[in-house]
């Protein structure tokens, strides 16, 4: 059975995992503030050694490709591409939000990953309690998200939503206040580390693997320069 290495560097936490089918063989997580760029490969080397695996034993590289920190996404994707090219294997991008939701599936609550998108917004989406996507990824202010969730939960059962992701702790007070008796916070050890979900989800969809040059980041947002330029062109078009 194929061994899948999952990588998640899209947010505050850095995590790696190796999955085989529906079995998690190994995982490693860091939440120590050091840069992912410095820690990723030494952690991978240690993880593989601990699992008595050689790099060549890996059959597929999976990586969370966004949304998330632009720089974090690129560290993960550039590393994943280099590993895939170096091993001569394929690469499978997995939604950062879906991988985060995977950590708390099957707990009887809708799942709402919230990742820090700066500018007082979160990257978010909504998943069923089993982890199927209901709302597509978006960048939203937490207040706006709470409003949409209140409306959704008024019409759906169970009337509970669990928040997961690196912005959950930051905004949980506001979300709890806006969604009384409906909001839950994922346990700390399940909040920051998307790699196990990334690897296990990839193991379910091996046929979607890509050659490394075809894997792209899903930034969700344009760069500031592109936004400004588009706004200027739109203003000129109106004149």
């Amino acid at each position, binding site marked *: 059975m194929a061994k899948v290495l999952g990588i998640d560097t899209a947010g505050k936490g850095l995590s790696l995992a190796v999955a085989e089918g529906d079995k998690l063989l190994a995982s490693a997580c860091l939440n120590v503030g050091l*840069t992912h*760029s*410095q*820690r*990723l*490969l*030494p952690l*991978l*080397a240690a993880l593989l050694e601990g699992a008595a695996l050689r*790099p060549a034993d890996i059959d597929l590289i999976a990586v969370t490709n966004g949304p998330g920190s*632009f*720089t974090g996404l*690129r*560290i993960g*994707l*550039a*590393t*994943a*591409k*280099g*590993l*895939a*090219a*170096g*091993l001569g294997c394929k690469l499978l991008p997995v939604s950062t939000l879906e991988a985060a939701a995977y950590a708390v599936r099957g707990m009887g609550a809708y799942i709402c990953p919230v990742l820090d998108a700066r500018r007082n917004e979160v990257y978010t989406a909504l998943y069923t309690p089993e982890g199927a996507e209901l709302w597509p990824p978006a960048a939203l202010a937490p207040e706006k998200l709470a409003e949409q969730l209140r409306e959704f939960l008024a019409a759906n059962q169970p009337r509970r939503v669990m928040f997961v992701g690196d912005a959950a702790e930051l905004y949980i007070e506001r979300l709890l206040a806006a969604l009384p008796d409906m909001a839950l916070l994922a346990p700390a050890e399940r909040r920051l580390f998307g790699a196990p979900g990334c690897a296990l989800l990839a193991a379910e969809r091996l046929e979607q693997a890509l050659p*490394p*040059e075809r894997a*792209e*980041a899903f*930034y969700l947002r344009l*760069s*500031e*320069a*592109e936004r400004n*330029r588009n706004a200027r062109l739109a203003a000129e078009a109106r004149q």
Partner: protein
Amino acid sequence: MVKILAIESSCDETAAAVITDGYRLLANVVATQIPVHQLYGGVVPEIASREHLNAVVPVVNRALAEAGLALSEVDAVAVTQGPGLIGSLLVGVSYAKALAFAAGKPLLAVHHLEGHMSAPFLEHPELRFPYLALVVSGSHSGVAVAEAPGRYQLLGQSRDDAAGEAFDKIARALGLPYPGGPAIQQTAGEGEAVYDFPSAWLEGTYDFSFSGLKSAVLNFLNQKKMKGEAFRTADVAASAQEAIIRVLAAKAVRAAREYDLDTIVLAGGVAANQALRERVQSLAPERRVVYPSPKFCTDNAAMIGAAALAKWQRGEFADLSLNAEANLPLYFYA
């Protein structure tokens, strides 16, 4: 015969090269992003980083294909560690580290400016240390004594804008395209340096300053506009170019004499400027002035490979915790 795969991504070119003993290039691939950044009048760091991520695999694969080598036949992977745009550097560093780890190859970390200063070896393998290097590009302007491979003494550098940056800003003010260096050189060729724009001499140092010149040109253009006076863009370009190159050339030649170095190496994108090359040679007719072809002046991975060859010989390898450094200093080795 050692074969090194080199990767460079410090600014807006994604580049890969394969080099072997004697500075012999087996492949040299550069994917430039200039057309993308021209829309914005200069390099946009976030866009550059995104472009690098999309380009790095095809560029490296093309270099290996040009060299006729499989990755397994390469002996080491070299990469630009810094200085440069951090987001851009991180793509190359992350990719190179992962590639080296997965393929079981040693990793070599190269300083971008050491790369530029090593570029002349690609076409002049007989060049010997020590030499005086004038490194002038879009992000760096410095005078250094290259004492030995990996051993450089930085004598001075720009206190504000780099020379290439000054060319870019002045070109933008004149309505010329990005990058400004080639555009100004071309336009200057049709004009005369009739305006005496100020050069900052910063006497007693080998430092440079180009922000005053940029302001002087902007003021000049504003005044002409307010008074409704005509002027020739070509003359302004020629005058601005003169104000930049006279100070670069004079300091390079003075340093070569002070440190008693027979050879002056011009490196970096601005070293492609013909007027600069001629000026340095005319100020120092007794010295050998060496400069790379334009394709090795602008950012490329061949020069990173050239610097990496010496590191390979010294056995100076980087480990997997290597990080990109936006402000990596030009270092010394004892």
